[in-house]
């Protein structure tokens, strides 16, 4: 598994990716998705394996990095660390910031490694299953992936579906890939090739976040001092080992579900930790079980989310959508064939994720204090610099100013979407899955000679449709129950 990683170049990429991911994770507003999108243009100078190793290392370490800010300034560095704030900050306020971060570091590492094991075993199995899939099955699978958007953490289920449909609509801009007829181009030649993924991602995540930060200038963070990260004591391990294992399982499972990611995983991991705890009254007041439950789950979701991404080409989360784009722009087509034709490449990814989890443990343990200092860089200096990188990175892909305008346009749209409760993640997933949905639908209709009812004659399609129905109804029922 580690053979492809024996080159010094890959190790340098891995170390850089882990460090860069930690910085991204620590800075509120940035995170693995935005960071991955920002660094994607730079990966064009690398070979495919190095590029994906860099992106996966960022994914793993940024997910953990969010915990540092969550514990020390009560602001999640990434959305996935939101649940960590609930107990991490109160424990830090009691003068035990080192203990809180130690627990977060250990549980994140265990969760991350657990999920890589899940990835190594389940991705090939899923890929093998996908050999049975034809166009109709892929269509049903993509629909299932899209309906799962209804249940992602942020936003209401219906608003998420609107955002998902908007993402698919963006993917229809340009020449129709089957007939070459132009759609929504309005005479702009540059639009005939469609809208690039990077301008939309950078706009929706980085630029919209910049606009959000412009509304939060009067925000004051209360920082808790950190002396050093402390490894959990034996009694802490005794108290939390079951929680860590349970949350690792939950996180990996939720990660595998299309479109779900670390945020949902950490919330469920946290609530399950509370439900099973012998001391539920301690939750919210600095419980180490709470920290372990949330952190193991969100890092376990990283490996889980890579399962559908690599085996089926369906992103398991927003960040894996960026990784999927990285694979595609480097000419690697995820899916069952990848497992048959390029096993070395895949094992390189698995191995790099495993090493990234160990690396962020080392960097987190020895360098958390240093990384925490990065949050001292004021937004008024940080965001103009991020803007410069965003603009140049977006321009660099096809050396087109239109991409820059598109990025700014989606930045403004993303800001208003978030302001009115629409998550931007479904737009990205919709954009990624759009071509697959339309392509497989149309090819299926060709196979079925235009008879839509033929979909229901395929058992796997029916199963995915039933799952899609459940994915749609469940969040609505849950919301209704909560409202009642």
């Amino acid at each position, binding site marked *: 598994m580690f053979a492809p990683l024996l080159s010094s170049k890959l190790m340098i990429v891995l170390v850089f990716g882990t460090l860069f991911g930690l910085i991204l994770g620590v800075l509120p507003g940035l995170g693995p998705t935005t960071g991955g999108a920002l660094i994607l*243009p*730079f990966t*064009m*100078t690398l070979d495919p394996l190095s590029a994906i190793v860099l992106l996966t290392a960022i994914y793993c370490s940024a997910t953990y990095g969010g915990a540092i800010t969550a514990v020390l300034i009560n602001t999640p560095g990434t959305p996935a660390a939101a649940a960590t704030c609930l107990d991490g900050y109160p424990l830090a306020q009691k003068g035990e910031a080192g203990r809180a971060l130690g627990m977060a570091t250990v549980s994140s590492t265990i969760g991350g490694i657990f999920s890589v094991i899940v990835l190594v075993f389940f991705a090939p199995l899923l890929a093998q299953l996908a050999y049975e899939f034809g166009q109709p099955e892929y269509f049903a699978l993509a629909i299932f992936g899209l309906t799962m958007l209804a249940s992602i953490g942020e936003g*209401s289920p*219906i*608003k998420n*579906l*609107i955002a998902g*449909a*908007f993402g*698919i*609509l963006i993917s229809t801009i340009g020449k*129709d890939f*089957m*007939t070459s*007829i*132009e*759609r*929504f181009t*309005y005479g702009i030649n540059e639009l005939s090739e469609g809208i690039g993924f990077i301008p939309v991602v950078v706009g929706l995540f980085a630029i919209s976040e*910049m*606009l959000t930060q*412009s*509304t939060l*200038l*009067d925000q004051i963070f209360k920082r808790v001092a950190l002396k050093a990260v402390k490894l959990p004591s034996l009694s802490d391990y005794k108290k939390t080992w079951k929680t860590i294992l349970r949350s690792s399982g939950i996180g990996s499972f939720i990660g595998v579900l299309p479109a779900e990611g670390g945020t949902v995983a950490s919330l469920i991991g946290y609530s399950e930790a509370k439900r099973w705890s012998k001391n539920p009254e301690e939750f919210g007041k600095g419980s180490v079980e709470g920290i372990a439950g949330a952190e193991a789950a969100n890092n376990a979701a990283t490996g889980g989310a890579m399962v559908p991404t690599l085996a089926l080409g369906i992103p398991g989360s927003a960040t894996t959508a960026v990784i999927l784009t990285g694979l595609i722009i480097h000419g690697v087509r995820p899916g069952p064939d990848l497992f048959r034709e390029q096993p070395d490449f895949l094992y390189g990814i698995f191995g790099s994720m495993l090493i990234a989890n160990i690396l962020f443990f080392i960097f987190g343990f020895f360098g958390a204090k240093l990384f925490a200092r990065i949050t001292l860089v*004021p*937004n*008024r*200096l940080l*965001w*103009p*610099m991020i*803007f*410069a*990188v965003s*603009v*140049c990175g977006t*321009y*660099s892909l096809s*050396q087109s*100013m239109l991409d*820059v*305008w598109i990025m*700014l346009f989606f*930045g*403004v749209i993303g800001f208003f979407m978030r*302001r*009115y*409760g629409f998550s931007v993640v479904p737009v990205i997933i919709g954009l990624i899955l759009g071509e697959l949905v*339309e392509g497989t*639908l*149309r*090819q*299926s*209709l*060709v196979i079925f000679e*235009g008879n839509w009812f033929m979909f229901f004659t395929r058992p796997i399609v029916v199963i995915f449709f039933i799952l899609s129905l459940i994915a749609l109804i469940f969040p609505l029922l849950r919301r209704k129950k909560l*409202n009642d």
Partner: protein
Amino acid sequence: MNNVQKQKRANKSLPFFFKDEFKVSFVIIFISVTLLISTFTFDIVPPILNRGIQPATFPKGLLFLIIILTSIVYYLSIKNPWKIKKKLPNSFFLTMISFVLFVVVSKTLDFFLAISFLSIFISFCWGERRVFYLIVVSIIFPIIVFIFFETILGLRFPPGIITNIYYQV
């Protein structure tokens, strides 16, 4: 009565077309209907070349779906009104203005100058007053980014006052 209660009461007395729920739903439906109309201008493929469905059918279906879902969101908001949003601060509008200026400067003068200009403008508007840091953000950092992209990625930036000087040197 606190500010939120005051705002809630004020919001209740607002006519429906001033409420966020209506404004957002209206904008989404208006844009969707406009796009839906434009799909009728797409070319139609002759039956012999048509594979499955017409190129306009899929976007039409999506736009119908968006309109229906938005109508449901609006209907639900009548029962459960949305949370009242805080007014956007001036710094937001200044940032938006800086985007417009960025577009104007990069189109008329220079791409690099536009980045520099936006960086100093935003940094200043967001409260930075130390000249050294303003220089770092607006000149030194963009130069580093510019050189990095130009030398490592082999990027050629669009022509402009400063870019032309750089390429001539």
